[in-house]
């Protein structure tokens, strides 16, 4: 059994909305092994986004623990948390690049923040752009790129901090199936070459199927089921998992049709 790298214990989070409270997470416990591509799947409102945002404390849980590499993030001071976050990369559904800056400057940005001299950061950024297959787009602006290319820039930017964890919050949900595949392949090659723990949040079974080794099925703010992807695909125990599998089949049918 591999050792857990990211552990979540009894994590709860409730949002207060105008029409009553919403329990996004209800005492979630999860452990994610080191150097694994771990998927979290659920329908919208299942709490998966809240869960991933608790992993780098963009969202403060009401109770519970987030332990990464043996350290409880909730006990860290502001400055320690900030430095830890630099090593927890995160990519988003809508990429969130700086629109006024070109691709190279976007990738240089986290290095600039860390005070790396200009020559070194340019070298490093170009190297990363090569890695994500955008070596020729350094001077382009985000508005000139396609969605998939923008996500590649976001990935290069996040890699600039040399993270040991990469959180993907619906990173392929705004992309078409073909582009999704190429982005997932890129993530896979990063995983193979860097030895990094990747957590993928998605509502698409095919993303899980394509890239993940383990998966947790989230529904109504609780973990319904957790285990190896092959096992869950073969023999789904929870209703949520069965529903998601059913949805995937209809997706595939509509792809053909």
């Amino acid at each position, binding site marked *: 059994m591999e050792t857990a790298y990211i552990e979540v214990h009894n994590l709860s989070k409730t949002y207060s909305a105008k029409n009553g409270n919403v329990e996004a997470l209800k005492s979630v416990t999860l452990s994610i092994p080191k150097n694994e591509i771990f998927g979290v799947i659920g329908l919208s409102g299942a709490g998966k986004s809240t869960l991933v*945002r608790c992993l*780098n404390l*963009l969202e403060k849980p009401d109770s519970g623990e987030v332990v990464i590499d043996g350290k409880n993030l909730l006990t860290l001071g502001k400055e320690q948390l*900030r*430095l*830890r*976050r*630099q*090593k*927890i*990369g*995160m990519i*988003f559904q*809508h990429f*969130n690049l*700086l*629109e*006024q800056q070109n691709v190279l400057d976007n990738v240089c*940005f*986290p290095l*600039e*923040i860390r005070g790396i001299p200009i020559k070194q950061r340019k070298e490093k950024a170009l190297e990363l752009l090569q890695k994500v297959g955008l070596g020729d787009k350094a001077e382009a602006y985000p508005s000139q790129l396609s969605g998939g290319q923008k996500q590649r820039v976001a990935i290069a*930017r*996040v890699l600039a*901090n040399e993270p040991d964890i990469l*959180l993907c919050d619906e990173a392929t949900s705004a992309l078409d199936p073909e582009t999704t595949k190429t982005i997932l392949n890129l993530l896979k090659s990063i995983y193979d070459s860097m030895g990094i723990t990747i957590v993928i949040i998605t509502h698409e079974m095919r993303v899980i199927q394509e890239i993940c080794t383990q998966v947790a099925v989230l529904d109504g703010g609780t973990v319904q089921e957790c285990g190896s992807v092959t096992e869950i695909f073969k023999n789904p125990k929870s209703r949520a998992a069965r529903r998601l599998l059913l949805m995937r089949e209809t997706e595939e049918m509509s792809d053909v049709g």
Partner: protein
Amino acid sequence: MPNLGIDVLFKGKNFLRLLGGLWAAVRISLISVAISIALGLVMGMLMTSQNKILKAVFRVYLEVVRIMPQLVLLFIVYFGTTRVFGWDLSAEYAAIIVFSFWGVAEMGDLVRGALISIPKIQYESAQALGMTGLQIYLYVILPQTIRRLIPLSINLITRMIKTTSLVMMIGIVEVLKVAQQIIEANRRTSPNAAFGVFAVVFLLYFIVCWPISRLAAYLERRWS
């Protein structure tokens, strides 16, 4: 062609005096605009805070500025404070205080509007990159805010420049006052001067404000 009366401007030092008056107006507005932009940025950031007391204070301040005619504010600060508090403010200081008081409030409100129009995810992705609060503001939020602010603040700046004509009411000899003096002094010899001189004043305001609005248009195009 009727006599427009522009010739009075070429008598003696009249035209230089008019330019001197223009400088007085521009000086007051430049200083006030500089103060308004600097403090307005800070104020806009504070206005986005969740603190209820702070919010209420800014609300009242903004309403006062919007409701009070600038002229009344000028009178209160220049004439009123001398009697009540015994302050010996020069007219120019009084004008700068009033125009800054106005500018900071309006600028603050513009900044607030621009800040809350930046999606929350921008803050979050910056946080996820491990940036400090100050870095997030300086490198991520402010550059985007400023782009949205340019057209709005240019409008405010030109309005401030034009409104400086009110300061002649507290005895500052600015461009409009000089124009009036020139016209009065030459009433007999060139009764038509009112048209020509005021037309020149109009041109002078135009020369000051036009480059500013061109600059804004240029910046907007460059950054979009």
